[in-house]
């Protein structure tokens, strides 16, 4: 049971990989394995963490060439080959270093975001796109005295998108983001779609228009990696397909 970890900090000519023999414990997660590395081998290993319960979205990284949350991914399941995710290949998950998937867990920083140190990436551009789509609820009528009434069925549809934890796993898994860094990406688009399907929000079409630009809805090629890697079951690809269909219909009618 070994951990093979990407190491890089400013001033290094190229990244290196450190291999660490883990002391096994039952149901150990990759996050726990990283803490073990930090405590037993090298306390300068850098990685983000917070809830350790797969709800805060802090610890997304590239684990065995798939973007996932380190706290939700168990080492043993990986070694047994139980956690394979079939995603469309793209350059950022090509071979970087030889590794034995039956013996080692390979941990690297999320692709498509600049590495600051080791497993910590700069999330700046990711949140810049989030802000670009202006994810703020705009009610279609003035606030009533009490709550707005909402159909429980509509809530269910909406929940699928509000569950996003903004971990950027989809951003890192998207082949288009890799080709076109100006593409808003699956997370921001799924977030925008969340407001579109909110029956309390302003009329639907104006919401979709916020990403009606070449680097918005139209840049997606429907690879679907985003749907497959999302740790919370959010389906950005589905949202994008529906948004594109709605915009096309509107354009045709016009």
């Amino acid at each position, binding site marked *: 049971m070994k951990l093979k970890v990407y190491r890089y*900090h*400013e001033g290094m000519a190229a990244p290196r990989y450190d291999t660490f023999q883990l002391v096994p414990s*039952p*149901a150990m997660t990759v996050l726990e394995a990283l803490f073990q590395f*930090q*405590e037993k081998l*090298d*306390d*300068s290993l*850098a990685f*983000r*963490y*917070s*809830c*350790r*319960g*797969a*709800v*805060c*979205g*802090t610890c997304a990284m590239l684990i065995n060439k798939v973007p996932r949350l380190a706290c*939700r991914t168990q080492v043993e399941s990986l070694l047994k080959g139980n956690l394979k995710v079939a995603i469309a290949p793209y350059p950022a998950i090509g071979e970087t270093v030889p590794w034995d998937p039956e013996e080692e867990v390979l941990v690297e920083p999320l692709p498509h975001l600049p590495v*600051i*140190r080791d497993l*910590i990436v700069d*999330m700046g551009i990711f*949140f810049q796109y*989030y*802000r670009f789509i*202006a*994810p*703020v*609820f705009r*009610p279609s009528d003035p*606030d009533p005295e*009490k*709550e*707005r*009434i*909402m*159909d*429980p069925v509509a*809530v*269910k549809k*909406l*929940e699928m998108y*509000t*569950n996003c*934890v*903004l971990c950027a796993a989809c951003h890192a898994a998207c082949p288009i983001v890799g080709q076109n860094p100006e593409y808003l990406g699956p997370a921001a688009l799924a977030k925008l779609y969340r*407001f579109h399907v*909110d029956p*309390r*929000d302003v009329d639907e079409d104006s919401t979709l228009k916020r990403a009606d630009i070449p680097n918005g809805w139209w840049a997606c090629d429907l690879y679907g990696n985003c749907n497959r890697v999302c740790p919370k079951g959010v389906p950005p690809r589905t949202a994008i397909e529906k948004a594109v269909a709605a915009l096309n219909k509107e354009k045709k009618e016009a």
Partner: protein
Amino acid sequence: MIHRHDVLIIGGGLTGLRAALRVSDAGLNGAVVSKVHPLRSHSVAAQGGMNASLGNVKGEDGTKDSWKNHAYDTVKGSDYLADQDAVERLCREAPTAVIELEHMGTVWSRLADGKIAQRPFGGAGFPRTCYAADRTGHNALHTLYEHVSGRQIPVYEEFFVTSLVTKDGRCIGCTALELMTGQVHGFLAKAVLMASGGFGRIFDKSTNALINTGDGPALALRAGALLKDMEFVQFHPTTLYGTNILITEGARGEGGILLNQNGERFMERYAANSVDLAPRDVVARSIEQEIAEGRGYDGGYVHLDLRHLGADRITERLPGIRQIAMDFAGADPIQDPVPVQPGQHYSMGGIDADINGATALPGLYAAGECACISVHGANRLGGNSLVETVVFGRLVAEKIIEDVEEMTLANDEPVKAAIKSTNDRIEGILRREGGELVFRTKDMMTNNMSNKFGIFREKQKMREGLDEIKKIQEQVGHVSLQNKERKLNQALIRFLELEGMLLLAEAVARGALAREESRGSHKRTDYPERDDLNFLKHTLVGLQDDTMHVSYKPVTLGVFEPRERVY
């Protein structure tokens, strides 16, 4: 570098962001400082819900809920240690706070008639807990962050606050270490609001995020504020065996039951009326007793059985905990009972603050879990902490807005001096060689707290525990780090957190030893009864010349007379 703001908010969880929005409404220049991105705050993990007497669901006998019912349940739940004027304020404002979030866009679960859904929670006489499936904190925090980000309120992300700066007995700002660069920044503000969360991680088995290290209360104590009721630590009855991730009380609210190894619904013996939905202190003690008396499973847990609820109800109302149980314990609640044990969950105590959030240190305010206003007293009811964050986040901001109107910023000098001394301190830590490792020292502390200051407490054990804390406090001065860099040095942050945690551990220990009674979460096997004559009062802990002093102050009563708590 010195940053200037009218109001500086330390912490980017629900309290901090709600306050930031209110400060921005008033046209003031506010900013948030947080050691993590605000969306990574522990508020995001809150599952079950937010209490407010909306009255959308009628009680058993067809009656409608009211703020007074909410207040009564809260005071009784607190074992009469909560300040009743603060509780009244919380419960009167709670419906507004929930509706405000709804108006801002938070998605709540709904009843068939389209109103916000409410579910039963422990210790509550009505189905009062408003919820968004079992992701209530997530939905609320994302909404608030969307507005904060939309209004471009400045957020200093991944800044670890290293000291509060005072001048002439007033808090005028702080210093903070920017993680990415290693640079120490200064902040000047007319008012500082501490909203930094709880200190659960001083214990070994905790539901809390790893970042809940109580940095705020430790900073406040060092700067001259007082801590209140620190011995009251909530142990949640149902945390997942192995990782201690929270399994919401909502699971029992929806009808889940607890079973021991003999398949017996043991809560019937401990709380005849409320059974599995008795308050947390009662249920946690009952589980602990079942385990101690050999009726738990090997390793020390019992079963939470949801299977009779059926797949539809589980997937609709409890999807998040189903996922957690599957991911972290390999148990699917639709088919398997979930292994659970009690674990540290919430800090009832915190920075002593009045009903407006003001502390003993002028210029410093506190709200949310880091504060003790006190609305939870000796035991918090489930669903009351989320509502506290948004109610007092707004109300304390309003008080600050009023107080800073006539004020000007202090001059730079004290902050400049604080930057220098912080830099010296950091350099000193980085220069140290040899000694114990920071991780080992932290484990010693957390094990000690769980073993000596857990669910059942006793004088001799606690004495040993306090001695151990003092020993570790001495050792920590020799702890050294391998990583000597200024930039992005997480070991350094871990060390700075640990220093503060050891102060809080001592405050918990001193408060617990001095309180020779049992009340709410504080259960003394050597003093098994509540003693209103001697201990119906708040514990205060202050620091003078590096020595901790314990004192007391009265509880505000006035509405509900203390009575025996029966569930």
